[in-house]
């Protein structure tokens, strides 16, 4: 027989008390697991859908006289020739501290051209980035697959009288219209999209970009912090945050995270108290037994070990059940908190962590009762015989 046999046998005989202990701890652990998993999954979900919100940071050349607004673009005053951003500078975007939060970088260059006696604005883009950024685009046709293809905004196509597959002359280059955007209600409706390198060449802006749109998601820092980091990386550029929607949503999530942390701490504290009180009363109940252990020659450390072993066994069960319950609760919570049910993913760290948390909490809450048992006066304990 080992000390653990004593611990196991005692627990087996006190099923009601063990059930109570496990439940108390389990509720705490499952609350923490549920809140942590829910907030994590919601944050990931927002990250996934981030693309659909479009850009939230815009980098434009720093300029005194130039007022460049992307919505309600005023084209007349453009003087790109002097105030462009060098394309190689964009590499620095990936060097900022929170580079991992930058999801999409879409550089563009603008140029005015004339076709059928109409002035129009062409924009050179990297189609992969641009399409990732503008998930809401509906293209009638295809996006350009070669340098000789263009994508037209809805309005500009109407104005220039162009349809899919018709040809359009930009500067000295002839393009074929590969697709036309459905109306977006944004400035994109009046733009002619061509490939960035070609646009740079056509408008004599090799190696330069007129604007960079960035989709970033900052889970652990405010968007303003990202803006500050980008400004430091690109001192010659003006970095502006747009689209407060996502940020607001993330803020709500942050608040929820803080709130849930507080609630978890409280529930854990209560769980710990349940363990403490139950263990304390069980030590009192076992006074006689502890007296016998003492008389038989168990050291204080042996007695303490029995009680802490019991705490570990109970906490281990509570941790495992608590994790499982927490995940179950998360399932339920997510269907409440999110209009669609986000992809449910499990974090192994949370699984291991919750078991550890339960054990640590159980040990802390049982430490004083175990000490009290170990310090019991054997003669007093035996007098209750």
């Amino acid at each position, binding site marked *: *027989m080992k000390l653990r046999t*004593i611990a196991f046998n005692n627990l087996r005989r006190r099923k009601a008390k063990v059930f109570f202990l496990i439940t108390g701890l389990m509720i705490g652990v499952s609350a923490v697991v549920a809140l942590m998993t829910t907030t994590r999954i919601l944050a990931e979900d927002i990250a996934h859908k981030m693309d659909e919100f479009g850009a939230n940071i815009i980098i434009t050349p720093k300029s005194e006289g130039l007022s460049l607004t992307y919505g309600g673009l005023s084209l007349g005053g453009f003087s790109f020739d002097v105030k462009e951003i060098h394309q190689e500078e964009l590499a620095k975007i990936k060097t900022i501290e929170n580079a991992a939060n930058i999801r999409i970088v879409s550089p563009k260059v603008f140029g005015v051209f004339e076709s059928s006696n109409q002035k129009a604005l062409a924009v050179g883009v990297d189609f992969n980035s641009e399409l990732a950024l503008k998930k809401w685009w509906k293209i009638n046709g295809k996006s350009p697959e070669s340098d000789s293809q263009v994508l037209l905004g809805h309005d500009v196509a109407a104005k220039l009288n162009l349809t899919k597959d018709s040809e359009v002359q930009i500067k000295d280059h002839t393009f074929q219209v590969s697709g036309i955007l459905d109306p977006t209600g944004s400035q994109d409706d009046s733009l002619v999209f061509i490939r960035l390198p070609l646009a740079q060449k056509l408008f004599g802006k090799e190696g330069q970009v007129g604007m960079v749109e960035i989709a970033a998601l900052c889970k652990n820092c405010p968007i303003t912090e990202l803006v500050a980091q980008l400004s430091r990386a690109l001192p010659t550029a003006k970095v502006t945050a747009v689209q407060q929607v996502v940020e607001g949503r993330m803020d709500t999530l942050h608040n929820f995270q803080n709130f849930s942390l507080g609630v978890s701490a409280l529930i854990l504290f209560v769980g710990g108290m349940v363990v403490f009180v139950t263990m304390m009363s069980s030590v009192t109940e076992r006074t006689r037994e502890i007296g*016998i252990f003492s*008389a*038989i*020659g*168990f*050291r*204080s450390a042996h007695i303490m070990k029995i009680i802490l072993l019991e705490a570990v066994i109970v906490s281990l069960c509570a941790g495992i059940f608590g994790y499982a319950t927490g995940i179950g609760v998360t399932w339920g919570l997510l269907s409440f908190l999110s209009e669609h049910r986000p992809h449910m993913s499990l974090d192994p760290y949370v699984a291991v962590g919750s078991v550890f948390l339960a054990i640590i909490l159980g040990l802390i809450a049982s430490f004083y009762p175990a000490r009290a048992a170990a310090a019991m006066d054997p003669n007093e304990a035996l007098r209750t015989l």
Partner: protein
Amino acid sequence: MSYIQVIQAGKDFGEGDARVTAVKQIDLSIEQGSFISIMGESGSGKSTLLAMLGGLLSPTRGQIVIEGIDLYSLTRTKLADFRREFMGFIFQSFQLVPYLNVLENVQLPLAVTHHSEEDQVRLALSALDKVGLKEKAHRLPNQISGGEQERVAIARAVVNEPPILFADEPTGNLDSRNSSEVMKLLTKLNSDGQTIVMVTHSRKNAEYAERIVEVADGRLIEPTPLRAAC
């Protein structure tokens, strides 16, 4: 020097006005292999004296010396080790751990030694055999009679063959048939060389011992030799 020596030992409980002197001053020597009864009225201080002898209660005055070791100069841990190696205890009742079966209860003192599980079981079964309860090894304490529980307690007290066996009113809760059975068991153990110190208020039980000392009001009354020390 005697095997067990009580040197001017006394014990007070409580402080100030609530102070109770349970044992005033006792000198006593006990030889190895002897069977001694400490007799006295209820409240005379017998249990207090036995607890001091057993390393369970430190005296307010005086010393307890066993095998030349002053018990209460030992640390708490060393004292626990000393109890485990040198002493077995039997009490009046309710001394079995309720959630352990008979065999496990007897094994208990071995649980913190280096005996293998096999050795533990072998020793426990042989101790149970001595008290005639080998067949009930797998019963729980509440599944056997009071007399049997007392015998299990004796088996547990001697399982690791400690030199000294302390018994405090071992038959206090038993009917006369079970009492005499327990007393015969103790006499048998003593005849096999076991030193036994027993506390009892019953003269009948005390007379199983080869030596009786009487305690009254926290003091020893002149020892009454019964049988000639052989």
